[in-house]
């Protein structure tokens, strides 16, 4: 089994790191994993995305036309990628910044106001981890404990951000464990 998760948003929203934490968690659980960034020209304010591939067998093509899931942190990302997600996949929408819909009925759309949640926690910079928490809680693609451990590892040396992000993770989880707004 192989699944691919696409994280996408503005540059600066912590998209790449978000994917990295998920990839790390998958590795910890013994999966094969590949993390692929967009590394467009250093044009500021562009869109950034990354793809995390998780599998039980060695991973062949790192190029995927149809990812299993999408975490869309801003509107252009949703517009660009919503249509390519595989049927039955998850599409997580950052409803704080995105007012439109995924335009798909064959996928599991979850809207979570991750930016607002993060703002309430103290910093919009934690929005990515809110989204990650929400996505993993819904997809169960990795164990939540493993994920928590990996978030801890990621931030343990950035002291002022550790508890913020651990909280963000839990808040993300909570957000999808409540009936998601549809």
């Amino acid at each position, binding site marked *: 089994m192989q699944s691919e998760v696409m994280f996408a948003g503005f540059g600066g929203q912590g998209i790449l790191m978000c994917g990295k934490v998920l990839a790390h968690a998958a590795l910890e659980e013994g999966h094969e994993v590949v993390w692929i960034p967009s590394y467009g*020209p*250093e*044009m*500021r*304010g*562009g869109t950034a995305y990354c793809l995390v591939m998780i599998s039980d067998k060695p991973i062949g093509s790192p190029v995927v036309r149809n990812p299993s899931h999408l975490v869309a942190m801003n509107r252009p990302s949703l517009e660009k990628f919503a249509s390519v997600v595989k049927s039955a996949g998850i599409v997580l929408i950052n409803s704080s910044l995105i007012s439109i819909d995924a335009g798909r009925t064959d996928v599991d759309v979850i809207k979570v106001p991750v930016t607002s949640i993060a703002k309430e926690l103290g910093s919009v910079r934690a929005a990515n981890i809110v989204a990650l928490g929400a996505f993993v809680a819904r997809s169960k693609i990795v164990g939540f404990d493993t994920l928590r451990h990996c978030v801890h590892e990621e931030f343990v040396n950035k002291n002022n951000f550790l508890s913020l992000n651990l909280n963000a993770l839990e808040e993300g989880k909570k957000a999808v464990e409540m009936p998601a707004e549809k």
Partner: protein
Amino acid sequence: MGKTYQKPESLSDQHTHYCPGCTHGVIHRLIAEVIDELGFRGRCVGIAPVGCAVLAYNYFTFDFQEAAHGRAPAMATGIKRVRPDLIVFTYQGDGDLASIGMGEIIHAANRGEKFTSIFVNNAVYGMTGGQMAPTTMPGQHTTTSPFGRNVEDVGMPIKMAELLAALQTPAFITRQTVIKPKYIIKAKKAIKRAFTYQLENQCFSFVELVSTCPTNWGMTPAEAVEWTENTLLGYYQLGEYKTPESISGGEDAK
């Protein structure tokens, strides 16, 4: 005129790709204003560098060539030699001009090539993600000087205006900055003077502009302005380093 303010004709409508608060945008505008005012857009050729300004050609409304990293002065030489009637300027960052392109700028200046060199010194490699430049300040942290620039190991930052002024061939060489309106006004005057020397076919002209890179300095644009004024300008002193009239070189700041 007086107090009204509008986009110059030599500037295109395109929004730039630069980060918020990046002074590349200010410099583009000044160049465009000068070209409008001196009226040579129809025979102007700009040369875009390899650096954050690699797409500069999108933001102007006249002919452009896009250079290889550091080689803009050689290209400008090629153009001016075969077409002295074109007005040519290069636009280069500090990595581009002071590192890989050192040979080309020194020789173009020394031959007295009749083009104008706009040198954007932001003390860092912007485009590639903030590596150390030859102009990075002592102690400044960059992605390749993670413990701060160690002058024992890699020497002092290079002062390009002073270095070029040490050559014997007549030239106009000045250093300005664009971090605040008062400086911007002076910078524009310097750019205008540089192009005027070219229009008169007098000499090579070089305008160093101390600039900001908020993104790679890890500062807000306003902080970047402050750091420039307090730190960079102490080392990179503003002024005229050489004029074709004063062949001797040396500082005679105005």
